[in-house]
């Protein structure tokens, strides 16, 4: 353990939404929109007798990333599980629309959420679909959307679907990305199907390392705000095309992946089949060791797409 290096790190996982933003963006460049002082809070939570948050649990605004204009949103992990309510969702939609109107260089979305805020029911569901629509308009205009996932809630539910509709996903191994949450799967399918209390199982199924190996995440970084920033800077210049051809290619890639691994019962089997030596130790490898171990075998989106294209 290199203590001196360790102490220079700042945990993305532990940081508040505002701190994640100011840490990722260029120093002193963040300007918040609809901040706490505007007090746009959730009318639904108030009616239900729940405490509200002045920013409804999402921080949005504009700033600079490596000198380029970007717009950015970060969900607050601790407030209502980062869930999307009406106001929360509207802020994100408005941000995406504003990004399109100002032709910003890129949009960064720091997602930390269980998905829809059930307390707000349909308002939350509608909000997510509006976010989705606004995002597609941005992509159509060639403005890349980068999703950063590395917080306590992971990125689940409708926002999990949404994350994969964006250009790039950057994750840490602490982060998780999926659709249904572990408890929901267990409730629906039984504990033999998925034991939600088996945290090792949860992380090797939905965690950053596995997502990276499957090609769902483009980058796997250490839990350090600087690492997320560096990955964002690298990927902000690389929008992914949103065309019929790119969609067909993606479908081919997914079909091949399904054929290659569809019958596996556990991520451990998938990794073995990928041919990665010592794959049982993947969960405990540190970031550097992990990348070194998998390098010759990785099925990153880039290499997968290249392979598909070559066929």
């Amino acid at each position: 353990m290199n203590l001196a290096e360790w102490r220079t790190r700042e945990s993305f996982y532990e940081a508040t939404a505002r701190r994640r933003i100011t840490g990722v963006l260029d120093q002193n460049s963040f300007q918040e929109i609809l901040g706490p002082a505007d007090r746009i809070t959730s009318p639904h939570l108030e009616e239900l007798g729940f405490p509200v948050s002045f920013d409804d649990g999402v921080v949005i605004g504009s700033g600079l990333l490596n000198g380029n204009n970007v717009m950015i949103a970060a969900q607050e992990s601790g407030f209502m599980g980062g869930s999307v309510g009406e106001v929360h969702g509207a802020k994100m939609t408005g941000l995406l629309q504003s990004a399109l109107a100002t032709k910003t260089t890129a949009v960064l979305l720091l997602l930390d959420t269980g998905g829809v805020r059930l307390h707000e029911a349909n308002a939350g569901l509608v909000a997510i679909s509006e976010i989705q629509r606004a995002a597609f308009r941005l992509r159509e205009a060639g403005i890349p959307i980068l999703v950063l996932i590395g917080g306590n809630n992971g990125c689940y539910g409708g926002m999990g679907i949404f994350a994969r509709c964006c250009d790039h996903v950057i994750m840490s191994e602490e982060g998780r990305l999926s659709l249904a949450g572990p408890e929901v799967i267990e409730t629906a399918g039984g504990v033999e199907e998925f034991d939600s209390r088996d945290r090792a199982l949860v992380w090797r199924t939905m965690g950053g390392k596995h997502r990276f190996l499957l090609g769902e995440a483009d980058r796997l970084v250490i839990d350090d705000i600087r690492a997320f920033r560096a990955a964002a800077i690298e990927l902000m210049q690389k929008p992914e095309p949103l065309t019929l051809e790119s969609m067909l290619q993606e479908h081919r890639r997914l079909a091949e992946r399904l054929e290659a691994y569809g019958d596996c019962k556990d991520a451990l089997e998938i990794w073995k089949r990928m041919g990665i030596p010592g794959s049982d130790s993947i969960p405990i490898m540190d970031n550097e060791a992990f990348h070194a171990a998998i390098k010759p075998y990785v099925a990153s989106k880039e290499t997968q797409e290249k392979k598909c294209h070559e066929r």
Partner: protein
Amino acid sequence: MIEQLKFDFPGHPSPVQPARGNACIGVVNSGNLEVLIESAALGGRCEVDVKTSANGFKSTWAAVLEDFFARNRFADIKISINDYGATPAIVSLRLDQAAAEIMEKEMR
């Protein structure tokens, strides 16, 4: 049930004047609170507006806030709080953090 409490404090006669603006500290999760501190035209006074999920602790809030204003030379300051059952220790900590943040904005 959210209990709403309002407190009024005489401002300090010779206050340290923060810049126009605001600072927000804390997260509204269980055992925690959010403190929004803002410059406001209050004729030299200070106002605190608390919305809390823990009912029946008005006198404790009064004591904590009185202590806070005794330690900080503020006037024309409005504090708004969303509280989700934080102990006085955490309330004091967040108030101090919010005060430090808004003073730093004055210095920038």
